[in-house]
């Protein structure tokens, strides 16, 4: 039962990455791509959540938190770069 839910949800989540990659390629604008990568990190956070849920171990939660933080940093940085053409 559990492993079925696991397989289904993980597979769905991986399928959910497809649109992200699609946007990364297709664009058409750079912000679209940024959104796509940002969304992709959200999906990965969810996948990590599912892993933690299924394996009942906290290892992946650390990864999730790191990912959430770092993806925020990345998004803000790229946005600022887009806006001002400078990072710092």
């Amino acid at each position, binding site marked *: 039962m559990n492993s079925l839910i696991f397989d289904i949800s993980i597979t769905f989540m991986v399928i959910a990455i497809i649109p992200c990659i699609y946007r*990364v390629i297709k664009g058409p604008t750079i912000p679209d*791509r940024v959104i796509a990568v940002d969304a992709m990190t959200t999906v990965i956070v969810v996948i990590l959540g599912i892993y933690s849920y299924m394996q009942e171990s906290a290892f*992946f939660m650390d990864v999730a938190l790191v990912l959430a933080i770092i993806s925020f940093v990345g998004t803000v940085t790229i946005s600022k770069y887009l806006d001002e053409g400078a990072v710092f």
Partner: protein
Amino acid sequence: MDSFNVITAAIFLPFIFAGLVPVMEKLLKQRIGWFAVATALACFILIGMAAPGVIEEGHIVQGTIPWIPSAGVDFTIYADGLAMMIGFIVSGIGVLIMFYSNGYMSKTEDLKRYYQYLLLFMGSMIGMVFSGNTIQLFIFWELTSITSFMLIGYWRHKPESIYGAIKSLLLTASGGLAMLAGFLLLGNITGSFDLTAILNDPQVINTIKEHELFLIILILIFIGAAAKSAQGPFYIWLPNAMEAPTPVSAFLHSATMVKAGIYLVARIHPIFSGTEAWFILVSGTGIITMLVAGFLAFRQTDIKGILAYSTISQLAYMMTMYGYTTHHEPGIGVAAATFHLLNHATFKACLFLVAGIVAHEAATRDIRKLGGLRREMPITFIIACIAGLAMAGIPPLNGFLSKEMFYESSIEMGASIGGIFTFLIPAFAVLGGVFTFAYSIKLIDGIFLGERDKEAIPHHIHEPPMTMLIPPAFLAFLIILFGVIPSLPTHYIIEPAVSGILLETAHLHVKLWHGVTTSLIMTIVTFILGILIYTKYDRIAAWQDNFNMKNPRISINYYYDRTVDSAKGNAFRFSSKSQTGSIKLYMIAMLLLMIALIAIPAAILATNIVPSQLNFDIPPYEAILLVLLIVAALSAAILPKYLPAIIALSALGYGVSLLYIYLKAPDLALTQILVETLSTIIFLLAITKIPQKYKEKISLSVFTRDILIAITVAASVFVVLINATQGIVDPFASLSHYFIDNSLLLAGGHNIVNVIIVDFRGYDTLGEISVMCLAALGVYNLIHSRSEE
């Protein structure tokens, strides 16, 4: 002191004293030359101390000091009659030259350097002749090349000096390399570089003669000898070597160093003679050189130029004679050659010294401007006449004797071959003699007889100081002495030397008069023809000039110059073709090598390139992720603009970290996620100031090539990886067992990966953080290394 030590001392004394020259110069100031004279004299005496045993008893001084035993190279002395003779010539003429230099060299010259080089040369030369080990011989041999190079280039600012110096070095030193190869092969056959071992053992000589590499070794060694003695095509360096100060020319480029090649031929005579190859190679080269150089001497207007060509031609005499050989009588011309070697040293050195006097006093060496000096410098004139006539082969001077012997041996050699050669070889010899006669006369005539061009040399010319007069006078004395009392040199010098060469006791009977022989007739023919030619001397010279003008390509110098002049250009063309500056080509070269290195074992050793059992079992979500990774990577490759490509790259990075999660590596996933974002930030920092100026348009051919390379790289990696991941070959297992079992037990950590990083393999991590620091320091350097601000 036993003889071995004495000779060793004679070898190293000049080296040590050369080192002392700067110190002595402080003491003696401009009289430093006398220090050099003393050194040379000391060497002469030292060699003389060892001489009696060799000369009287036919005893050969041999001895060895281990030097590089592990390479089979020892410091070995082999002092037989031949070595003694050359040793005496070197140190004896050395004394005279240094003596003479005291008068010749202006006090404003860099005397320190001059005498240092001369002494170093003398030491090298003495070392060379007494070498009983081929490698040791080679070392001293090359040292003479280098000192010669330095002395030719003594006046370093003159382009001619530089030209002559580098030419001599290139030809003689590369000839030396060929010789080295010959010695090495010889060493391989005999098992050692010990010359004495070869010379003392006929068995070994036989082995060499029968070896398949015999001819190659002979040719290689002979190339070295020929280059040193300016024979064959290598002769071209010697005329340019005349840029050296005249005493140097007298010492190195006529009396001693150029004899090194002759010495070598004599030294290896017992090993290689008695074969057709020896005759063809040595005598063939000798005869051609003798004729060509003798003929070419006509064109020279510089006294030293004439002397240079004459030296080449005279050395060719010796070469020719040493080359005379048959199976039954290997050393037909050995005695004659050896005698001529000695005689040539006396009269040619003398002539050079005279040339030096003339140049010193008249401030020119141009034979067209000179003339009539007999009145102003009669002593010099007499000396010059003695030496010149000796060279021309006029009795009763020593040159006559050795030329007679040359003719005799030529007849004998011609007869032993038979056929047309019976006449041809003596005829060549006579022709050589004719040329010699002609230019010898020209030399005396041009300088001392007739009237000189008063406009060119208006001032009065007088005799040189005694320091410059005594050495040539002494040599002139020797010329007469050896000519009149030939038994003196033959008994004490030539016989031991010939014995040394032939490895058997030799007895010579040289007399001024031994009846009307064929050789005497040849000599008379020589004089008659010589006088005839001399009447046409200027016309021949003019014809040569003309010919040379019209056919510049018929000249070895032309090809040498062309090669050297164009070497740089050609080399640069080559290097700019290979080192194009295009990093892409560099990468392709490397990648292709990598592919080839995987393909070679795959082609040779692999039975099946991809293992038969493959694992296709994969959960669908992982398969989808793999496809997505490829797509992300592809988009990073395809997207033309920086920012989208960087974003795609970071998507790839996040994908990879997800894959790490699937592969159960949370630490990796964490690290990858973090690193990904940081790299993105650094990418952004870097492209902040880089506007994207162009979009690469890939032509079809480039695209096809790159794709092919990419696919091949992928395929090779695939093949290696798919084989490698078949698991560890039984019965071995992974180190990881240890880590898993002991991580908690011994290192107190639950996270095995982290424990490996900070403990089991913490040393790696120490390196890794060093790399981080390096990146930071490097970036600082990058930022703060602007050209000009």
